[in-house]
């Protein structure tokens, strides 16, 4: 029963997660080294590719946009004590809402279309997350399992809808009809020359707003207060008269709506159509982003940027160093989840000892 001294706040909030991320990257570096490549050279190429020139930076921000939304979808549910592994499916189904409204009103100016696509996508994504929420709240079905299953169901459902219903006659690839150029959310490059023809678009601004919104929601709203209460202590939540079943359902729906913004970014702008499997793992990156960012919007923003840079830099890397494929990024992503999520406390006890010793030495 030795009394453990808690770590100083800055260690808990900043140092420990940073050490975990560094550990993940070190091991990633060792793997690169193990296949006979130079990890430092790789890092250099990636940084150059991700930030070195306007087009590359634009791509980085495009990926970052996806990862911010996916990361927020995981983070939000996490604050209410739930592990949402479903952003991938929620974003996919959200794409259906985006394309339906876009095709129905095709030709409408983007300034009107943008909000409509946001709302439609949000509704569809929210619905896809709401069902697991209801099953958890009313039937006690574990949200981890149901969100995983809903990812798969989304894949089959959307593949049916895209290939059988939305695919126009005479088109070879599995995709919907295109959205008119005037209705598509414009690229940032149209306003800021630096980004050139890179895919980063106004949805990036939406992502920044979403970060602010989630920050406000979680820490500055009554709803967020209730959400965090539930995440920390369900018994005290009942004591406070907060309905946990309602909280679970609404939080999941909000998370699904956030995930669906990935669809706005891709379907509504970058691709301008609904393509089979357009989410392409961005939803899963959200899991890593959320854990690495400690579910805080600032952390989510930073880790989404990091992963955005990794994805963009990884593409460059694959050109410059044929020995390293962009799958190395998925490996890094896995290591980040492992060290910041599952093994997040591995370094805690050594650190506690270190700081306890420091405290007694300085105290005497």
């Amino acid at each position, binding site marked *: *029963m030795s*009394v453990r001294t*808690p770590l100083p706040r800055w260690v808990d909030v900043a140092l420990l997660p940073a050490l975990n991320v560094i550990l993940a990257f070190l091991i990633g570096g060792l793997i690169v080294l193990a296949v006979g490549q130079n990890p430092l050279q790789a890092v250099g190429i990636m940084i150059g590719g991700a930030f070195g020139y306007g087009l590359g930076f634009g791509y980085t921000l495009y990926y970052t946009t996806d990862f911010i939304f996916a990361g927020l979808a995981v983070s939000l549910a996490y604050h209410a004590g739930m592990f949402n592994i479903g952003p991938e499916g929620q974003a996919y189904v959200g794409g259906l809402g985006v394309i339906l409204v876009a095709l129905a009103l095709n030709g409408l100016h983007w300034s009107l279309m943008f909000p409509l696509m946001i709302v439609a996508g949000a509704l569809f994504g929210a619905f896809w997350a709401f069902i697991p929420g209801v099953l958890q709240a009313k039937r006690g079905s574990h949200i981890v399992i149901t969100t995983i299953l809903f990812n798969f169901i989304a894949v089959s459902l959307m593949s049916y809808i895209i290939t059988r219903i939305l695919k126009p006659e005479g088109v070879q690839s599995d995709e919907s009809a295109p959205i008119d150029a005037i209705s598509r959310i414009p690229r940032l490059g149209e306003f800021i020359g630096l980004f050139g023809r890179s895919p980063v678009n106004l949805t990036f601004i939406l992502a920044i707003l979403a970060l602010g919104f989630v920050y*406000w929601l979680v820490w*500055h*709203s*009554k*709803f*967020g*207060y*209730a959400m*965090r*209460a539930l995440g*920390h*202590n369900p*018994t*005290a939540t*009942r*004591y*406070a*008269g*907060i*309905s*946990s*079943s*309602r909280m679970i359902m609404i939080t999941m729906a909000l998370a699904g709506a956030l995930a669906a913004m990935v669809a706005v970014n891709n379907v509504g702008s970058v691709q301008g159509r609904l393509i089979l499997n357009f989410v392409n793992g961005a939803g899963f990156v959200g899991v890593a982003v959320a854990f690495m960012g400690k579910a805080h919007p600032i952390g989510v923003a930073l880790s989404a940027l990091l992963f955005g840079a990794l994805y963009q830099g990884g593409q460059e890397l694959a050109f410059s160093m044929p020995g390293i494929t962009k799958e190395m990024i998925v490996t890094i992503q896995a290591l980040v989840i492992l060290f910041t999520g599952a093994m997040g406390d591995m370094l805690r006890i050594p650190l506690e000892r270190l700081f306890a010793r420091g405290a007694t030495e300085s105290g005497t």
Partner: protein
Amino acid sequence: MTTVNTPSQGLETASASTPAIELRGINKHFGPVHANRDIDLVIRRGTVHGIVGENGAGKSTLMSILYGFYTADSGDIFVNGTKQNITDSRHALALGIGMVHQHFMLVENFTVLENIVLGAEDSAFLRPTLAKARAQLKQLATDYGLEVSPDAIIEDLSVGQQQRVEILKALYRGADILILDEPTGVLTPAEADHLFRILRTLRDEGKTVILITHKLREIMAITDEVSVMRQGAMVKTLETSKTSPTELAEAMVGRRVLLRVEKGPASPGKVMLEVKNLVVADDFGIPRVKDVSFSVRAGEIVGIAGVSGNGQSELLESITGMRDQTAGTVFLNGQPLSLDGDDGAARARAAGLAHVPEDRIRMGLITAFEEWENTILGYQDSYGSGPGLSIAKAKATAKEYIAKFDIRPSNPELKTANFSGGNQQKIVLAREMERDPDVLVIGQPTRGVDIGAIEFIHNEIIKMRDEGKAILLVSVELDEIRSLSDRIIVIFDGQIVGEADPATADEGALGLLMAGVTEQGHSPGPGTLPDHVTPIERNLTEMSPKDNSARDVSP
């Protein structure tokens, strides 16, 4: 193992007079808590030895040390006259010490037989082990009257039967000394009687039984000797036949200096809180509050006295909307309260009912929150007009409460987990008291709170009463109930067994009531003896008025 083990037969080395267990100078600390201090104890072979004491007196810790769950900081343990260093439960089992835990260590979807052999299998394959166990079980059943169907699934069995499986587990492993930790807490009176018959048989067959309990009725009914513990120390060991419940109750509670609470006479107004025919079940669906009715008036404090685990927790939780009611109604200011659903507590609060919960860490606070965030728990919707939370207003309130209740450290942005127990309790009290409620329900107001804070908290409660609030108080500290309450209701086994005036009631009489011993003619209504009166209860009932008659005259 299963055949009769008389003391002389069973042990070759030790003579019959060697104690089964002897403890010398046992000390155990948990952090700053001194759970056991210099405990000496001798348990004679072939007896049923009771260990009584209030909650937190250190009984369970002591027995856990004996069973190898904890290691003592200092002191010696002698088993059958030999000094032993018991390192784990396996070791204890090898020494013939078996334990029946308060919360059963059974695998619920296993059969009785599977549970009994678990961890004591003879071979890699189950078939021979199970066959052998089946035969032994039959033998044990005939030897000790421990009948349980070997193929029954645990979760289908009654609690009493499950307990028998626990005892069988210990006996199957060759236990000669059996420790039972609060064995009747979960049993019906009929099941408890059955258990006592079994324990008597075990003793008669030469086993040594150690019974940990806080129920005097059980001590008087079944033990040969009884040791009383109080606040981690051993008070005394007595022969049961030469003592009385009153003497034990006094030894348990001790003649503590009553904390002086300055309070004038109450001037009760109209009924504010009324509970009618309330029935409440626990998490396992077992009824814990059984048809309880009472009322609390404005300007009075009604204390509910009782040994913990007799339905107080469920009663408080259901009145405050934290637990579903099976039947009955709660009226607040004459209006029935709708407490259904998982947000019932919000409606109770809106109707003017404030609640200081029994377990502040588990219920009343979110320890990961900053102090100011806990200041608004349950009232968060009144901070800010729209969907936004007015943090400025919340922090201002927090600062106000910190000043008024002298909460230290006076930093509303500090994590709540870093406050001491007393200051955490003040955070809860301030929040619940300062909202001008009509009714205040308080559970264990001073549990784990230091002396200085106790006085402060008591005075605040009295102040609330004098402001005309209706206050319902539950505490396991009888002192606290007596010094604060204007009326005392005694609860036992989910029923109200009596009511007393704190000015005239004495501790012994209350203790007996709390122990389920009802005085004839004193408490009518639900307090009359239940249908399942046992001979033991009848005996005690007969002797209790005699014991009390002498005390009633004393001031």
